[in-house]
């Protein structure tokens, strides 16, 4: 199920974002998996707190990056939801 602007994305309780000092990069780790995050990906995941909607997250990041990011963020989180590391709260 793709997420929508009203979805409340939450990180799976088995997953967490951590900083890897070896790669100097943030990574998402979960059982049997690790995903290297770019700055944007990390910024999105760090705003997924189980209360904000995708719309809320897009508003915060849109202000930071001065552009409309709603569809990009929805796509990104939907891909992670497909892999079950993001849940719709």
């Amino acid at each position, binding site marked *: 199920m793709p997420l929508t602007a009203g979805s409340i994305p939450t990180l*799976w*309780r*088995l997953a*967490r974002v*951590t900083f*890897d000092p*070896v*790669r100097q990069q943030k*990574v998402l*780790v*979960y*059982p*049997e*998996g*690790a995903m290297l995050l770019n700055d944007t990906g990390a910024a999105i995941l760090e705003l997924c707190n189980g209360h904000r909607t995708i719309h809320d997250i897009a508003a915060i990041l849109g202000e930071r990056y001065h552009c409309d990011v709603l569809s990009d963020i929805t796509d990104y989180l939907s891909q992670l939801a497909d892999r*079950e590391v993001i*849940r*719709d709260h």
Partner: protein
Amino acid sequence: MIIDRPTTLLAELTHRCPLHCPYCSNPLALVGAEGELTTEEWKRVFTEARALGVLQLGLSGGEPLARKDLEVLAAHAHGLGLYTTLVTSAVGLTRERAEALRDTGLEHIQISIQDSDPDAADRVAGARVAHLKQAMAAIVRELDFAFSINVVLHRANIDRIGHIIELAAALGADRLELANTQYYGWALENRQALLPTAAQIETAQAVADAAIRRHRGRMQIIYVLPDYYESYPKPCYGGWGSVYLVVTPDGQTLPCHGATHITTLHFENVRERSLDWIWNQAPAFQAYRGDEWMSEPCRSCPRKAIDFGGCRCQAFALTGNAANTDPVCTLSPLRPLIDRSIQDAAVPADFRYRYVTLQPART
């Protein structure tokens, strides 16, 4: 060529195990307790692995709870920032030990279940442990660990896949791995008794697909088809020496836990070499990196970037040459080896249990 950093280390802390499963993935000759790496040696291995880029650590075996220093090792791993999974049968776990492990910062426990039917489960394990495992699963859940259940599927339990899934859900698993047996080592010896028939596979797939949808969002279900029934081989951790490494109880370092069976390679030991050197320089890790080593039909095949020629361990076990195309591939001229064993699966056979004589320590 550019060598990537590894992401995952499987630490086989010991070969000691209270179970006798006929599909055991450990080598036919095991390391005894006296040959195992010491606490300090394992800690150094974890530290070196983290420095090399490893993010995920599996504490495995044998049965890792057989190591009295498991808590010390888990605490060290947590201190390094590793995401650590205890891969266990739960035999040897107690509430006290589970609490101690939680206090070390251990995040994830994976418990093996042999079957949904306790008597059938005990027959496969060769020990009366099914009820104990379920009791320990409840404690793991109660202590709020991230919790996975792993079930090895084979001919004698795959028809109960629906019950197995419901049992895992009732035990509160976050994640369920339904992994069909892979035929190396002991499992290869028992292949005729373990390999499901085509009809069993078809039925199980339908049950698994429906359950994956039904449990989505609560319990993640990973269903791995036996590769014998696939048309193309499995990609094996992104290719040889790409992201994954294994250290055996006595310190041998391998690109895959099945690689001990490849007798034509020499595997370096962490007692003599740094993990960094082994990953970046050791001939065994270089042997099948990239695609230079490939012959036909892989060399000119566009799928070589997808499955990397399949599993080197399986190529060696079934064809005698680890550089051959994995014979599971329908493009391999040796695919008839696989088709013949699928035909043999129609004939019933008994398990050969793993009652182990430990080898003297290797140096």
